């Protein structure tokens, strides 16, 4: 067997070692698994500090942190459930809440948790983590409204001292900031969009839509309303911006604004950490934040905000321990100190926390010019409307907006097409609920 000896020996060796190593794994009394999408190095370390503190205070409870990319979080929750190996504690995007509740994924919070949330969180945020029947499903965490983030230096160089407050000004400034060099390359772009990312496309669109007097779904969330005349105007704005060169989908606002080559982006507060570390733009002197410019059919700046929440899996054998852990992370243990998660949200992410005590305790960290603007916006921003099938609708809308940006379709056609599909999905979900 000379011929195969080398490769086979290699394989055999490894296989044997594996068989020996496979034996014996000790288990602690209670192990809780927490699944989050906070997966960068710094975020992992910050979460581990919280977990270690809890485990020290609660011997006998072992917390295991599992993180996946945001793009795979929903999949992981669903396949984990199907497989019967779900995590005990989830942190997830509230748009998925109705789907998860319909499928029985979540456990109801205890009465103590419900009253704690009720006493310490603003009603709008509580609604954002509740289903239509009023049931609250978990501890809300970050509240993320959208605003216009702009590069003061680039706008000033183009001759503008103030950010745009109307769409006409937005178009004008975007066009003025854009610079195309002699090779035909865009060296500087007016308004950056974030193609390829559902929230990065749909949330800024929604913020502009609401600032144009429009709405996303009907109030009872049974039909799409983004295809209204206000919606078509909003998407026409995108088409105009592309036509004038004010925006270009091949340039990512997410990647290029921090490098100082994009004038404006519609973004959320948690971007602060990135902007502070950015080398192409000075956070203190060059990053400006303004309200969403008002459209021709709107009368005041508006916005949308999305939320995330901690919840417990209904299959968890340790629901009480899981809720205890979530409560411990979110509760204030000493007056004025804020919670562990509040600290993490504000100081590691730059996000706005949901709990009153965190907003108070970390007010200083949120008082910089960047986050304070978002705190103000969170008072009037519309919570993202959550509905069963919402993720699918959002993805469909994202793709059609990208198609308009790419000049592949018109605003009317794009929105009519998504609205028809969205209405069918909403109808189907209602029928499913009845079946």
């Amino acid at each position, binding site marked *: *067997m000379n*011929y*195969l000896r*080398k*490769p086979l020996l*290699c*394989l*055999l060796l*490894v*296989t044997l*070692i*594996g068989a020996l*190593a*496979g034996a014996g794994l000790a288990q602690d009394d209670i192990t809780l698994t927490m699944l989050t*999408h906070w*997966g*960068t*190095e710094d975020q*992992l370390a910050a979460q581990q500090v919280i977990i270690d503190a809890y485990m020290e205070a609660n011997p006998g409870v072992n917390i295991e942190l*599992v*993180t*996946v*990319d*945001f793009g*795979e979080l929903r999949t*992981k929750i669903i*396949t*984990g459930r*199907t*497989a*019967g*190996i779900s995590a005990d504690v989830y942190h997830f995007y509230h748009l998925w809440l109705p789907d998860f509740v319909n499928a029985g994924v979540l456990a109801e919070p205890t009465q103590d948790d419900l009253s704690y949330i009720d006493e310490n969180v603003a009603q709008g945020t509580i609604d954002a983590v509740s289903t239509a029947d009023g049931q609250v499903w978990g501890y809300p965490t970050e509240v993320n409204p959208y605003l216009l983030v702009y590069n003061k230096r680039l706008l000033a160089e183009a001759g503008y001292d103030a950010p745009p407050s109307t769409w006409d000004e937005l178009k004008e400034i975007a066009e003025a900031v854009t610079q195309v060099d002699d090779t035909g390359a865009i060296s500087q772009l007016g308004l950056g969009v974030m193609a390829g990312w559902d929230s990065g496309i749909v949330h800024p669109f929604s913020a502009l839509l609401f600032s144009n007097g429009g709405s996303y779904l009907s109030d009872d969330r049974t039909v799409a309303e983004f295809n209204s005349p206000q919606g078509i105007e909003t998407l026409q704005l995108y088409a105009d911006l592309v036509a004038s060169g004010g925006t270009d989908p091949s340039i990512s606002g997410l990647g290029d604004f921090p*490098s100082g080559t994009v004038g404006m982006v519609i973004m959320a507060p948690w971007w602060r950490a*990135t902007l502070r*570390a950015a*080398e*192409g733009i000075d956070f203190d002197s060059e990053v400006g934040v303004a309200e969403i410019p008002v459209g021709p059919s709107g009368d005041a700046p508006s916005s949308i905000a999305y939320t995330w929440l901690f919840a417990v899996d209904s299959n968890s054998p340790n629901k009480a321990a899981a809720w205890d852990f979530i409560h411990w992370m979110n509760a204030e243990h000493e007056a004025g100190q804020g919670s562990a998660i509040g600290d993490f949200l504000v100081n590691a992410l730059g996000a706005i926390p949901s709990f009153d005590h965190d907003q108070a305790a970390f007010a200083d960290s949120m008082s910089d010019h960047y986050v304070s603007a978002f705190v103000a916006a969170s008072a009037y921003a519309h919570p993202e409307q959550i509905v069963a099938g919402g993720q699918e609708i959002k993805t469909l809308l994202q793709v059609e907006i990208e198609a308009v940006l790419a000049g592949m379709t018109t605003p009317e056609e794009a929105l009519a097409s998504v609205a028809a599909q969205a209405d069918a999905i909403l109808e189907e979900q209602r029928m499913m609920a009845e079946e």
Partner: protein
Amino acid sequence: MIQSDHPLGGFATALKYIVLVGGAFVMVFPFVWMLIASLMTAGEIQLRPPVWLPATPQFNNYAELVESIPIARLYFNSLFTSGIIVFGVLLSSSLAGFAFAKYRFPGRELLFYLILATMMIPFFVTLIPVFFIVRQLGWIDTYQGLVIPGLTSAYGIFLMRQFMITVPDEIIDAARIDGASELSIYWRIVLPLIKPALATLGTFVFIGAWNNFLWPLLVLNSRELMTLPLGINSLRSLYADNTNLLMAGTAVSVLPMLFVFIYLQRYFIQGIALTGLKG
């Protein structure tokens, strides 16, 4: 020894080498660039105009990487599971191929055509149900869940049968007359004769198992069980803002396999070449 019977012979030869070198440059460059970028600082990667080499190579990047992800564990998991899959497929395919090639039994044709038919099925048709079955067996997030569905291969059985048919019946009959059992005929006589075919199939299966991404993505949860492709995938979010570290991570996951390949390239390339001729 190069006889130029063509007036442009020298020129044509030069052209051949130019094309080959150009092609090889394209093939090798991404790996080289990955290494260079992995030694840059985060700032150097974003410089415009770009720099082609780091001012001082940042070997620290690798130290940082080793601290934050369990490279050894990822390697072990990939090698261990791929190894079991290769052994499993070689054993099951050669046994079944032997039976189909050298025995007469009722149902042989039917079963063989059934196997041929299943070779055409896209893997995705079976993905969801297999996931479901593995879950029913309680094997989600275990090595066996990752490995066992891959232990048999319709293609492997087909390939083995094609090769074993070429083994002369006389050798087998002679062994039987000498009193050899059926098992020892398989093990002592037939297997040694089809070693090249085994290398072929083993190579094929190994590359497939080593690079498999979708199945482990679905079936594994724990970090302890993660294979290399899953590790690379998790690096994408871990180092979303640090392309230099992302490249270091990719390099660490790719290069050792390349060295093994170069060391064993004879087996790989002979094996692959055979599939084209026998498939």
